[in-house]
């Protein structure tokens, strides 16, 4: 069974060590929650997996293939989709065009239509706005669009950076439910970076807690959620 393997990953920005010897594996059909305070290195971890920053040492493997030497678009074309922080969508394009963009490298013009309809099925609010420019969307809709654009290429690995940031609790809950169902239905490997530990632990099978660039806990999500002392110490609730 293919897994995403991260081994001894270290990233530094000049003299600042953002990540030190981070290792964990994420399995198919599971959500792996990555938790930690601000500046712990969660975003850097995702950026290193998709090649947006280069690790100083360590490897990233998916299905036995080493990703960490590949260019960003090559990693993406190996089935790794990354939804960066801040709902990155192409503002000057319509919702439909943004989705087409995500499907561009993967599907022929004829195949794209039905694949995009699937995304609209997943996120109905987007369907109503398909001809609207992305800069007219609300925060939640933008996040849906960013995730939709990642999913439209039918990835095998989905990396999500703070998808609940700035969203109303009810929107977050809906988003998490969609993610949970999708992970099981499409046998995705999901790595979910979140500040909001409670909501991400509710759908995660595994949890990795990072503190100052190091993995401090790597365990079942249920166990972490049950361990009051750990939770209190690292997650603050």
């Amino acid at each position: 069974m293919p897994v995403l393997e991260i081994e001894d990953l270290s990233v530094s920005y000049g003299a600042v060590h953002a990540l030190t010897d981070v290792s964990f594996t994420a399995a198919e059909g599971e959500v792996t929650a990555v938790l930690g305070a601000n500046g712990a290195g969660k975003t850097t971890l995702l950026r290193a997996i998709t090649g947006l920053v280069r690790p100083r040492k360590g490897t990233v493997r998916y299905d036995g293939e080493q990703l960490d030497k590949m260019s960003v678009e090559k990693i993406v074309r190996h089935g790794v989709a990354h939804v960066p922080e801040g709902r990155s969508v192409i503002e000057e394009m319509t919702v439909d065009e943004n989705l087409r963009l995500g499907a561009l490298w993967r599907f022929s013009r004829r195949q794209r239509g039905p694949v995009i309809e699937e995304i609209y099925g997943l996120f109905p609010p987007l369907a109503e706005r398909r001809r609207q420019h992305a800069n007219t969307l609300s925060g939640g809709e933008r996040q849906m669009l960013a995730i939709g654009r990642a999913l439209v290429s039918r990835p095998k690995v989905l990396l999500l950076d703070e998808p609940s940031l700035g969203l109303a609790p009810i929107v977050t809950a809906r988003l998490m439910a969609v993610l949970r169902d999708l992970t099981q239905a499409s046998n995705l490997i999901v790595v979910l970076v979140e500040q909001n530990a409670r909501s991400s632990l509710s759908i995660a099978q595994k949890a990795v807690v990072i503190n100052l660039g190091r993995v401090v806990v790597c365990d079942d999500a249920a166990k972490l959620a049950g361990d009051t002392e750990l939770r209190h110490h690292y997650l603050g609730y």
Partner: protein
Amino acid sequence: MGELRKKAQGLAAKPWFRMPRQPMLRHLSYAAVAVVFLYFLTQKLSAFNDYEVGEIAFYVVALAGLTLLTGVNGQISLGHGGFMAVGGFTLALLVEHTKWNVVPELAIAIVTSALVGALIGIPATRLRGPYLAGMTLMVALGLPYLTNQYDSFFGGDQGLTTPQPIGPASINPEQWLAWIQLACALIVLILLGNLLRSRFGRSFRAVRDDEIAASLAGIHVARTKVIAFMVSAGCAGLAGALLALSAGGVNSAEFPLSISIYLLAGMVIGGTGSLMGVWWGAILIVYLPTSWAPSLANHFHVNSQVSANLAVIIFGLVLVVGMLVAPGGIQGALRWVAVRVGAYFSPDGVPNMKLSLQEAPTDRAVHDSESVTQADKPGV
């Protein structure tokens, strides 16, 4: 007025003619209309006016390339005069050393300047904004004067001669040349129009708006930027070759820095990112420096030092005022009017965005107004 409005609404409900939806067909039908119009225009005009129409045509070619690079792909270039020089000299060298027809000569001029464009485009992928402007500025300054270094090959200050292509005896040479140049302009506009509608066009715009998002969508950002540079430089090269045909020869003085600056200003004034707007820019570039500015200087009896630079000053003024009044340039302003007129006559009073001629919209004002109007109307 009410009668007129009702009548127009009736017409709008039942259109008697619809442009084809397929982009290639639609662009070809625009071009067919343009061919008929331009044919009769060149028939009516004098030889000198034909020459000016030809000039407008090759500036359209150069501006279309620039609008693709700067407007659609977001890479600024102050070096397009340099690429024009590459195309012009390539054509002149081919004329001198071969006995080919003008068509393969133009084709090779395009290829050569596209290759030079790639050479510049590859380092350009690492630069942006003012740094890219600085680097491309060196192209505009350096490339034409490089030819002075190799006198024997490029003809030095005198340059090389390029005789006008001879058409059928019944057609006068100016008209024949204008037709060649106009044909090139229309072909370039059709091809670029299709390119912008294709996956490449979408990639160009995605890279302009957000490079990280584009790369995460699987787009090869660097390759996309180099392709844009090559296509754009190829257009500039074709324009330079057509300029050489008009001028009857090439030398380094024909491609001064001001040509690159006029091109950038003309593109912005015409409407950044708009392929239709390039006609306005080209008309301005042809008439402002040679005809409008001198007559203005005469009228106000300004001294010769001012009058020599009057065109640049006016370009600067128009640029500043234009950007404040109409950020989308002339084409953006026309579309703004068209959308509003359309809204007045449409049955539900909602602006019809299909009126917009532009494939790659950059005019924010128009979109914003659309969403506002839709939000204001309950149930739309």
